[in-house]
């Protein structure tokens, strides 16, 4: 009996130690799931490359960058402390499903497909890879105002961006 107990305790110790090691030691970075949709970081354009392509703020507006990650950069367009719109450029490599909505699109802006999403969001797909989006905040923006903002992005510069080798 004592022998069985010893074996039991030993086994329990080994199992709990290996589980503990797996949970506590920094093995987690080796596991999948570290990056968005498991796409390697090297295949995604860094958000820093998008910053200089945002529109220059006009007549008293202010552009405040709020988020910058791999494949994503976002800024707020503010006027007198009030947020007018969210402006964002993202690399759709990590979100291929975002492409599908542009397939049925009839409208074009500078040759790129344009889609309205709900009452306050307009999206543009540049070079089949970069999604540019304007989302009206607060009192909201007309579709024309949103498209005007989209046109003021440096779309040519964006189309010329390539993924890092």
């Amino acid at each position: 009996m004592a022998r069985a107990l010893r074996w039991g305790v030993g086994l329990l110790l080994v199992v709990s130690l290996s589980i503990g090691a797996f949970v506590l030691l920094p093995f987690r970075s080796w596991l999948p799931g570290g990056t968005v949709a498991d796409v390697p970081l090297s295949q995604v354009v860094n958000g820093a490359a998008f910053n200089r392509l945002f529109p220059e703020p006009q007549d008293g507006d202010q552009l405040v960058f709020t988020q910058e990650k791999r494949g994503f950069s976002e800024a707020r367009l503010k006027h007198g402390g009030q947020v007018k719109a969210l402006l964002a450029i993202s690399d759709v490599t990590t979100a291929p499903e975002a492409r599908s909505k542009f397939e049925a699109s009839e409208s074009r802006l500078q040759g790129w497909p344009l889609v309205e999403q709900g009452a306050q969001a307009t999206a543009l797909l540049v070079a089949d890879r970069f999604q540019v989006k304007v989302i009206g905040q607060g009192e909201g923006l007309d579709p024309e105002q949103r498209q005007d903002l989209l046109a003021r992005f440096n779309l040519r510069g964006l189309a010329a961006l390539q993924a890092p080798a």
Partner: protein
Amino acid sequence: MSSVLERLERLPRRNLTVLAIKGLSTLVPGGWTNITRADALIGDVLGSSDPELIRQVRARADVLSQARHEGYGRALSLYDAVNRSQKAAGGLRLLANIGGALPLVKRVADLTPTSDRLQAADLSLKVAAEMLAFTQVNGLPGDSFGDFAAALGDYAGEARVRMAALICFDALLPLGDQALQRLDGLLGGLHKRDLHQLPAYAGMARLLPGRGDGAHLTFLRRGIAPWLGWAEGFSSQLGLTGQKAVQALEGTLGPWQGSFKQMATFLDAFTDTYQHTGVQAVARRLVERAAAEI
């Protein structure tokens, strides 16, 4: 691990924490709404209540919060670490307060870190956690330091009630109305070994930049300086004082007979304001990104 939006939906709708924040928010223009429904938050950001769009944003937000490199989950664990240690320290101090008369518990009273210096260190850890969480959630936005400072200011402005809670509950109530002015001096007198008396430090040490306690201490002292400048302006603009904070809290929590310090201990032990508003702030940034990426 549960996603950010699941955490948001599990936040309490009405308890002591919510009442404390509600009370304090009467001091801050713009007020505060306790957002605990992910769909409402998404609809608010997107300016649309189309269920299909909301479903897409939600799915994208879950994908983003599962990815460890994106830092949304890491920011939440920072808030959790700070919250755990705040509760532990608050509980000990409460015990010391109640049981000061009992011989056995008196020993605990001697052990509890109640000095102003440690309170100041605790505040600086919270501010450091806030800045680390900011970089985890938002990256380093913009191309210059000016852009980064503007982003930080914008974030603080958005989380005004959160910042007011931090200033009142962790500085003005426990350290007095001159807390922000005194903080620099208090931190200057801090020793490396004092850090180890803070429960939060053990959890955060590996996330702080630099190696060793000395480097961490320097980071805390330097890191709090820009925040301090902002916080002084903010609190003088709103006229925040311990007295006003207690009055505002009495509006929702009921009359308070004890001292300001006891109020701070009570709030530390029984409320999760830092974690509660933290989850809401992270969820909002996450949804703003997900809405732009669908």
